[in-house]
């Protein structure tokens, strides 16, 4: 295949967010080149669990984005199937629902308050008794004090999903280039973005999308328009394939607090789910340790203990491996989606932290709507680049 030398838009980062942006832009008729310094879908996208969650978000702009995204995912998969065939569109989409479990009485009240607030904005959140919870998940601990069922929670395989989105970009005349690092931007006489330096060459384009995930801060500095996106590390334990033990996405009620926390210290809260192959994934940890990849056994121990508290049967199950990744974190816990006010033609789509898989379709749609001057379904103002928590001073 011949390499394209110019594009309408260059998307930097071939993870789920870059892929979703590129898909939405190419669906709008734009010619898109996606570059990634590594392999497509090989960074943060490959280091998570494939969460498409409504349950862990309190009412607000992120939940609005999540609700739109939850509606878009199945539509998007269906349209990819129609366009590219069954094989490409097989992304292990499982609308399995979520069950949030309070194992002590203190957690029941806050969980009920959150569920009530979510119901007010249209999220299905059904309070269930401990007996009902155990009927839904027979291996669940007997220590259930209360639980809420979220039928809308879902899961998919993020690498397959990103790959499918990128396949659509290629089918529409775009290109995806791995092993190609973007270094800096090129501007025209009026200060507008005119291209991007990739590898040894320069690619002319009308717009650049910074979708570098946790490395979005790095690229923004190289581009001369710094934004505050920091890495937050998360680890996942993988059990050997098991018979059906966990039906839904089951997590402890304190997970919501851990998601919203800004603590530098390690946060651990059980999130347990099965995958299509029978393995059980055990998350979640959050740690701000920069890009330090060193394996910390204490994190894994705490993950295992928290999971056994929810599902005692897991105590005797072998762990096959562990993996992890860096999630793109912003100081105000909201994604950054929009054009940079300092450089027309530079766009950012990052900062989704651990929710990027779930938020990807709505992020792509919003970015494409903004770039093409269309009305967007969600209010873009809360995600704009020009907000104090995100826009960083140019340090000279």
């Amino acid at each position, binding site marked *: 295949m011949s390499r394209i030398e110019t594009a309408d838009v260059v998307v930097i980062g071939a993870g789920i967010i870059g892929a979703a942006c590129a898909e939405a832009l190419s669906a709008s008729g734009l010619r898109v080149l996606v570059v990634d310094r590594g392999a497509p879908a090989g960074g943060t996208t490959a280091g998570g669990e494939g969460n498409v969650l409504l349950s862990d978000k309190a009412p607000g702009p992120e939940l609005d984005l999540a609700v739109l995204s939850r509606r878009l995912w199945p539509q998007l998969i269906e349209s990819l199937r129609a366009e590219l065939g069954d094989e490409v569109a097989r992304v292990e989409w499982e609308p399995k629902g979520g069950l949030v479990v309070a194992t002590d009485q203190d957690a029941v009240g806050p969980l009920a308050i959150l569920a009530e607030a979510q119901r007010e904005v249209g999220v299905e959140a059904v309070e269930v008794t401990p007996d009902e919870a155990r009927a839904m998940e027979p291996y669940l601990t007997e220590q259930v004090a209360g639980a809420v069922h979220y039928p809308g929670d879902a899961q998919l395989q993020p690498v397959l999903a990103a790959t499918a989105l990128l396949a659509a970009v290629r089918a529409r005349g775009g290109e995806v280039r791995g092993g190609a690092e973007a270094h800096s931007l090129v501007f025209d006489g009026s200060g507008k973005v005119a291209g991007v330096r990739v590898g040894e060459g320069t690619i002319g384009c009308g717009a650049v999308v910074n979708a570098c995930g946790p490395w979005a801060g790095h690229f923004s500095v190289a581009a001369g328009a710094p934004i505050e996106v920091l890495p937050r590390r998360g680890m996942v334990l993988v059990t*050997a*394939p*098991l*018979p059906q033990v966990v039906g839904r996405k089951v997590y402890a009620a304190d997970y919501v607090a851990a998601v919203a926390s800004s603590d530098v210290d390690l946060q651990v809260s059980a999130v347990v789910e099965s995958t299509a192959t*029978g393995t059980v994934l055990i998350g979640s940890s959050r740690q701000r340790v920069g890009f330090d990849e060193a394996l910390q056994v204490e994190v894994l121990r705490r993950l295992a203990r928290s999971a056994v508290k929810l599902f005692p*049967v897991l*105590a*005797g*199950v*072998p762990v096959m491996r562990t993996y992890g990744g860096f999630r793109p974190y912003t100081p105000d816990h909201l994604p950054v989606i929009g054009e940079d006010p300092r450089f027309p033609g530079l766009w950012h789509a990052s900062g989704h932290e651990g929710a990027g898989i779930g938020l990807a379709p709505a992020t792509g749609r919003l970015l494409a709507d903004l770039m093409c001057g269309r009305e967007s379904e969600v209010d873009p103002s809360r995600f704009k680049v020009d907000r104090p928590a995100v826009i960083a001073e140019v340090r000279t």
Partner: protein
Amino acid sequence: MRVRFDGEEVEVQEGQTVAGVLLAKGIRSWRTTRGGGRPRGLFCGIGVCFDCLVKVNGVPDVRACQRVVAEGDDIRTQAGAELPS
């Protein structure tokens, strides 16, 4: 030293792995795959491939090539994915 394999008593030597014991007895497969129920035994022999899984003392998914036998071990063939018993 003695262990049991699927209920049958087997004489073993100290330091042998479960895979070593079973191969020495001429047994080449000791579990079945989860989907197709096909036979599996030793493949890589160095603990990487997770093909030689077996149930030892009620714990499933033990790598036979890595597990050194201990007196009285109860070793059992594993059918697909099993939970600890």
